[in-house]
């Protein structure tokens, strides 16, 4: 029990340090918010002119997808930040202190939630300016945002593991770029997935990015009766399916990352 309390207290100290960094070096935040704004505008107006989603304005349809992709990219900060701390020997300092073994990771992933909240606020504002509307109750909309954040939090732990594994923050950024683009594109994020070739369609149907996006889309009320999600369990129960993924990812990657942290030798 005391060790759990220590983990939280120490985690809060580390999180505070990361948040000071966001404040002093805002470049990172600027870039993580600029690209989604760019996506909203490019997709909304370039693809939006050619793509028709039955019963929904494309720009409304698009927002949940972009939210989902952006918070996933936001999670890569966890990996890049840890890789940088390893490189600079700061992890060595932490490891030589009598602090909780999980605190650095808890602190890192927690501060990245804050980062994602800021990004979501900026994007929601952009969305509202180009005609995105929440057509459900505030509570449901809040549920949608929470689901996205929880999903991103789970991805943070995957990135934490990768960050402790690779030699430099650049590798995290490049590697995650290569992995995240296909995962977030082969889904219902930007276009409905019904007309994908069969293999891609199956992947998209069971891709948790699809379920998270669909769940958010429904919770924001950006769907219509004409727009029927594919008849697969994952997309008929998008909230539950997404949460199952969250639990599995956390169950695997939290212990894995903490183990990697204990043995990580600085380079």
């Amino acid at each position, binding site marked *: 029990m005391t060790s759990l309390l*220590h983990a939280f207290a120490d985690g809060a100290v580390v999180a505070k*340090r990361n948040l*000071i960094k966001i404040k002093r070096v805002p470049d990172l935040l600027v870039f993580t918010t600029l690209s989604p704004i760019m996506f909203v505008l490019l997709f909304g107006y370039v693809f939006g002119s050619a793509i028709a989603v039955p019963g929904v304005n494309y720009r409304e349809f698009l927002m949940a997808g972009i939210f989902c992709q952006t918070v996933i990219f936001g999670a890569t900060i966890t990996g890049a930040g840890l890789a940088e701390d390893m490189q*600079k*020997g700061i992890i060595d*300092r932490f*490891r*030589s202190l*009598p602090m909780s073994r999980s605190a650095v990771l808890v602190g890192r992933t927690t501060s990245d939630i804050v980062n994602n909240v800021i990004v979501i606020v900026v994007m929601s504002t952009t969305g509202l300016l180009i005609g995105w509307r929440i057509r459900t109750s505030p509570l449901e909309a809040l549920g949608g945002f929470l689901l996205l954040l929880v999903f991103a939090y789970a991805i943070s732990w995957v990135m934490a593991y990768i960050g402790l594994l690779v030699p430099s923050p650049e590798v995290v950024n490049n590697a995650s770029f290569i992995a995240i683009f296909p995962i977030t594109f082969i889904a219902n994020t930007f276009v409905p997935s019904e007309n994908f070739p069969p293999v891609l369609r199956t992947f998209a149907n069971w891709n948790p990015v699809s379920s998270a996006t669909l769940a958010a889309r429904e919770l924001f009320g950006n769907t219509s009766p004409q727009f029927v999600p594919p008849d697969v369990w994952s997309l008929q129960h998008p909230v539950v399916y997404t949460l199952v993924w969250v639990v599995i990812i956390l169950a695997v990657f939290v212990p894995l990352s903490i183990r990697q942290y204990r043995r990580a030798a600085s380079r």
Partner: protein
Amino acid sequence: MHEMIVASGVVKRYGDVVALDGLDLVVPEGTVLAVLGPNGAGKTTAVRILTTLLEPDAGNAQVAGIDVCADPAGVRERIGLSGQNAAVDETLTGFENLDMVGRLYRLGRRRSIARARELLDQFDLSDAGDRPVKTYSGGMRRRLDLAAALVAQPTVLFLDEPTTGLDPRSRTGMWDVIRTLVRRGSTVLLTTQYLEEADRLADDIIVIDRGREIAHGTADELKRQVGGERIELVVSQPSQLEAARAALAGVAAGEVVAEDGGRRLTAPVSTGASALMAALRRLDAEGVELLDAGMRRPTLDDVFLTLTGRSTGEDDETDDTAAASRRTAEEAKR
């Protein structure tokens, strides 16, 4: 006298590369041990094992009476580590760095803040304390890193090359700081590449090479082992070299060696400055013109040359390959 740091038969391998090959050392309470050796000798690996950052493959070690493998958390509560690359956060201020460490030692809010300010004062950083560390000079960063190691007033301190890369003035300043700590009763293990640094700070020195001890003793004992002082002179006319060599041989305690294409002569002597005066009188009588003449005190390089037959620089290339294969081995292991 208590033994605060004890290591016996510590072995660490990275794949085929042996970083530590059965290292033994003992540091009594309140004393300073210098671990002297060139790059890649295993100094940092030894520090990482003693500070619980790395587990040894064989052997055992105790710090403040606690086994590093059996109770690493207990060891961490009693040690301070200042590493080779100042491990301080560049975007935080000096104060924020120290306060963060204080909180992580669970000093509590008020004590942590007070301790941070006190250390900034003590390390001459109070003016810069509220500036981000990225505006600090190399010497200031090292001082801050050392201050961070001292937040919880540890009884045992590990300093991994505390002055490497510092300019001479910062280096002297760092030496003063370390001497003050020792006067107050800290036990210190420091690694260094400089015999002079070990000579100034340490009560006891071990010289290591390729992960094992090759010499052990006080600075004076080591220098004696190396042959102590030498006379070094540079003749202005190469034609006078033989005359100079003969004159020098008359006072030398060993072989006269020609370096630098033959114009520089060195010879070990046993009687210090009087040997130099005797040599100069002989050279003057022979009419030998000199560009330079003086006593040379042994450096790590001399110690090394005597003990291993290699100079410290000769290993550089193999060191890099060793470090590279060590990294690959580390990665493969994960």
